């Protein structure tokens, strides 16, 4: 055998027998619509994709607390305040379920947290829009949470076990979020002319951003095909957007308001909803950090983390002291 250039271990282009075996077991599990669990072998890109997706999802829940927390003190009644607090607590809980799921892939919590605080990680760009008035609480619940639910329900069947299980819990809790938002808009729409206008204005501002929450159109979403092959994603961005726009087109009638999309209609021949062209330049711009509230959201998160430092330190010190006295 002719001498060859020695290769560094691990850089071989030819997978080892064990790797091939592991890969085919992974493929078989995905093929059978079974689930991958934390200690199973998985291809590195699958692990990376999931870590990124689940942690971004967790960050979105955590940052998503801000636009609503901002309105707790100004909610119009004690009941509305309690509801809003419960909702913000839920978002914190959802963030924690998802961080736990992400951690099972091998990245520690502190590292994930750091990625958010240092601006290395992304979160859903919808939270970089500001919530200007009380009607926005309604539009966010109805449209933003509605779009999130449409996205999340199929994720309950994601091929990665811990992600699917976290999503089941999230989806169960999320359904009240959308309803409470819808009812805020319903109350406003049955109120004075000015209140009705407030509700319409909030819908006008959140309609397009909520449709963009499903991500770029399928022909401009290069990673979708791989995610679908891995059964992380079950439906394409456009399929989910179609489903959502169809639902809200009906629901808005109950409010006696309109969607800011005059030519929105269902094309019987193509069997699909035709909605206005979405402003993807704006979407990309917000993702890049130039949205109305990007800097503010991140700064608020850092501030909360800084302000909590003494609590974490005290808890750690107390735990160490307790452990010592137990040993003694």
């Amino acid at each position, binding site marked *: 055998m002719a001498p060859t250039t020695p290769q560094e271990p691990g850089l071989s282009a030819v997978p080892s027998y064990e790797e091939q075996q592991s890969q085919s077991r992974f493929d078989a599990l995905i093929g059978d619509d079974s689930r991958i669990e934390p200690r199973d072998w998985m291809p590195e890109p699958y692990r990376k994709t999931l870590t990124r997706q689940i942690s971004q999802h967790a960050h979105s829940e955590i940052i998503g607390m801000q636009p609503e927390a901002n309105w707790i003190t100004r909610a119009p009644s004690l009941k509305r305040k309690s509801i809003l607090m419960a909702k913000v607590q839920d978002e914190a809980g959802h963030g924690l379920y998802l961080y736990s799921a992400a951690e099972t892939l091998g990245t520690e919590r502190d590292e994930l947290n750091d990625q958010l605080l240092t601006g290395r990680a992304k979160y859903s760009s919808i939270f970089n829009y500001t919530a200007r008035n009380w009607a926005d609480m309604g539009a966010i619940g109805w449209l933003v949470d509605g779009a999130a639910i449409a996205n999340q329900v199929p994720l309950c069947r994601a091929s990665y076990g811990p992600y699917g299980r976290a999503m089941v819990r999230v989806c169960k809790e999320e359904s009240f979020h959308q309803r409470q938002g819808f009812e805020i808009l319903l109350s406003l729409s049955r109120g004075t002319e000015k209140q009705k206008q407030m509700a319409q204005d909030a819908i006008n501002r959140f309609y397009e951003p909520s449709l963009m929450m499903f991500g770029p159109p399928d022909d401009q979403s290069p990673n979708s095909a791989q995610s679908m092959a891995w059964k992380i994603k079950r439906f394409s961005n456009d399929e989910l957007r179609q489903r959502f726009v169809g639902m809200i087109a009906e629901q808005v009638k109950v409010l006696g308001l309109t969607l800011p999309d005059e030519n929105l209609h269902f094309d019987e021949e193509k069997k699909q909803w035709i909605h206005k062209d979405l402003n993807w330049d704006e979407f990309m711009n917000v993702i890049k950090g130039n949205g109305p509230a990007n800097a503010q959201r991140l700064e608020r998160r850092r501030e909360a983390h800084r302000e909590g430092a003494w609590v974490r330190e005290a*808890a750690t010190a107390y735990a160490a002291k307790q452990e010592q006295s137990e040993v003694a």
Partner: protein
Amino acid sequence: MSQKSNWPLWEVFVRSSRGLSHVHAGSLHAPDKEMALRNARDLYTRRNEGVSLWVVRSTDIITSDPDSKDAFFESPQGKDYRHATYYKASEGVKHL
């Protein structure tokens, strides 16, 4: 920029009502057992999901090796006579 806390990971088990087993609900980080229990209550029972909670340090759980699972769980394979459905001759006999 953040100070690393390295709080241990705890697994949370919830009993949803009397008469049922505790079932794994998820996990969380906490500095000690007391905080783990309080955090578990806040995180996993916001809607009356439980009447009792267990928290266990993740590192204290002993698990089977996922790579050898076929061999580890081999024994029951082919022993379908352990199931009632194996016994066909008695089909149709009442209360059996």
